[in-house]
């Protein structure tokens, strides 16, 4: 058993109670630790007993039975980001929109090639501290595992002011240039924007571009000659290439996945 596998198991063992599927995650991790000699039969059985009861905290039962509680895992920024990437990937897998499968493939390939490397984590814009908690609260019910992963990875995301958004919007790249997962073919990350603000963007070249708002409703206008429409959370937005796209953020902050593929990466003739 490698140190990395044990560290991974300790992380999974600490998956917060209440998240869907967390009971089995904890039990699977407990099995790893048991097989490595780091957990007793009795403690393993506690985790098995609660494997299908996501809401129950095994620590409570371990203490009641006077069994050893595993120490909390140390901070691991790369693992936090990898877990967030998994949750974002699952979110993307459920999206039915042009560009979603392209982005998912690019993100998966990058994640398979490397763990997150050294990346720049600048001082986040003030917007992040002001708006991210409300955004996470807004997605906590529908996307609890993503909200938890985002909260864990919050300190490792390289939030930067969004070029077109002034102080009202920020972007945290995950895939692309100067991102945890370097990639020349695609760009993928999170967008955060303040309630009541107006955001614009313009897609200059004919590439797959996709926005998946995790919060809502917000008003979206995918091209200047199209009407502004109120769209709920998780309804994908596909801006029209070469036209101005505008978003009128509603009463909750906008938190969204945003991704684009470069033309050479998506043209059937352009792939090698």
């Amino acid at each position, binding site marked *: 058993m490698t140190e990395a596998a044990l560290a991974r198991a300790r992380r*999974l063992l600490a998956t917060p109670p209440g998240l869907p*599927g967390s009971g*089995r*995650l904890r*039990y*699977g*991790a407990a*099995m*790893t630790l*048991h*097989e490595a000699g780091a957990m007793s*039969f009795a403690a*393993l*059985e506690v985790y*098995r007993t609660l*494997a*299908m009861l996501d809401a129950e905290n095994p620590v409570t039962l371990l203490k009641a039975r006077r069994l050893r509680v595993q120490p909390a895992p140390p901070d691991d920024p790369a693992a936090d980001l990898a877990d967030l990437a*998994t949750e974002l*990937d*699952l979110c993307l*897998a459920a999206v*039915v929109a*042009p560009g979603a*499968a*392209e982005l*998912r*493939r690019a*993100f*998966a*390939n990058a*994640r*398979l090639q490397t763990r997150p490397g050294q990346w720049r984590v600048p001082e986040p814009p003030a917007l992040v501290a002001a708006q991210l908690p409300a955004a996470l609260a807004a997605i906590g019910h529908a996307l609890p595992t993503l909200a938890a992963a985002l909260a864990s990875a919050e300190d490792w995301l390289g939030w930067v002011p969004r070029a077109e958004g002034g102080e009202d919007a920020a972007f945290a790249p995950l895939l692309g240039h100067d991102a945890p997962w370097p990639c020349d073919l695609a760009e993928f990350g999170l967008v955060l924007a303040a309630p009541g603000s107006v955001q614009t963007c313009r897609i200059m070249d*004919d*590439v*797959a571009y996709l926005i998946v708002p995790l919060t809502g409703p917000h008003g979206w206008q995918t091209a200047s000659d199209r009407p502004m429409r109120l769209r709920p959370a998780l309804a994908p937005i596909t801006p029209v290439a070469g036209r101005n796209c505008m978003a009128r953020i509603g009463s909750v902050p906008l938190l969204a996945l945003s991704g684009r*593929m470069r*033309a050479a*990466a*998506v*043209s*059937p*003739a352009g*792939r090698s």
Partner: protein
Amino acid sequence: MTRVLDIARPAPNTWDRRGLPAWTYHSPALFELERTDLFLTHWQIVGHVCDLPSPGDWLGYEMLGERGVVMRGADGTLRAFHNLCRHRGSRLLEGEAGHCRSAMVCPFHGWVYNLDGSLRGAARPESFGAFDRSKFGLKPIEMEVWHGFIFLRFAPGPQGSVAEWLAPYAPDMAAYRSEDLLPAETPIWASDLEVNWKSVRDVDNEGYHVAMAHPALQDLYGETYRDLFIEGGLNLSIGEFGTRPARRWSVRHYVGIAPEQGWLPDHLRRAWTYYGLFPNAVIAFTPEMAQFYQEIPVAPGLTRISGRIYRRAGEDRRMRAARYLAYRIDRDTAVEDQKLSIWSNESMKSSGFDGFHLSDLEYGLRSHHDGLRTLLPVMTLETPPPEDQVAATNARMQGTR
């Protein structure tokens, strides 16, 4: 590069025009032989690598009592296993597809498996005495990825590797860049039909009925449609569209809107192609999409017809519209074919049925039936053996060949 068109041959016109005897379409004993000697021993197409891009993604495949799962491991490698806990045989993963975050946990007693199929540990391990974990990994299933498509085989059989078996198709698959396909928005379709699987395949294996039964296909490519046969039991059907003005709404708009795919070689640029996979599947391409469809036998009189649809990366609105129209044409064709399959299958139990008398344009049926007869010689008997002697008769006939 050799094109499949260059090595294919047309149907001969001096041949035995009979089809399989009617009893082979409803005999439970023969169905059991088909299970063991045909379906479990021949490659089954189950998906495409794009269906499971991320570690932990999995795809299920079930047929005739076998439960398979293809899993992308933490290392990115695809592996196939029986979806069957080594403790008591419980199903580990439920559904057609999904994602496993870290491990497969058996819902029965709690054995835990890694994504590579190895056993992480048994529940209550102290209750098993000396226990060699390495002997209780999930049982692997033979798997091969060919031009992006994933094939499984539950038992060794006569087809060799997929790459060897389908080598004549390889240049076309490379030309289509099938490895780069992506799943369509609703990639999976399936419906159950109360017929023997061969009745479905019989309809799909010939183009003689197209002019009569499929107005849209006839309008699209009827004049150019042809079935071609390749040594080794492979067959290709091809029709070229846009050779004359179309009359039907879907076809007219499809032909008008389908963008020229300049990256495809000339012979595929305006073609709909169908690559037969003996015994029960087809990979089909249009310039803007691909799909595979197959008959999964459930019982002698029940067949699950299913398929998966794929698209090109980075398609624009016009290409997406063309793909929708192609799907619309296919959807009508499928409904029309299902009715024909039911009527054909019904006839097999009628005293008035004297068997098929096939046209040269139906040589695909004969070719498929010949493949079945070679594997299961009992199918050559016009009069059925008693049900309890079908297997023994077949074994005797195999021994005397």
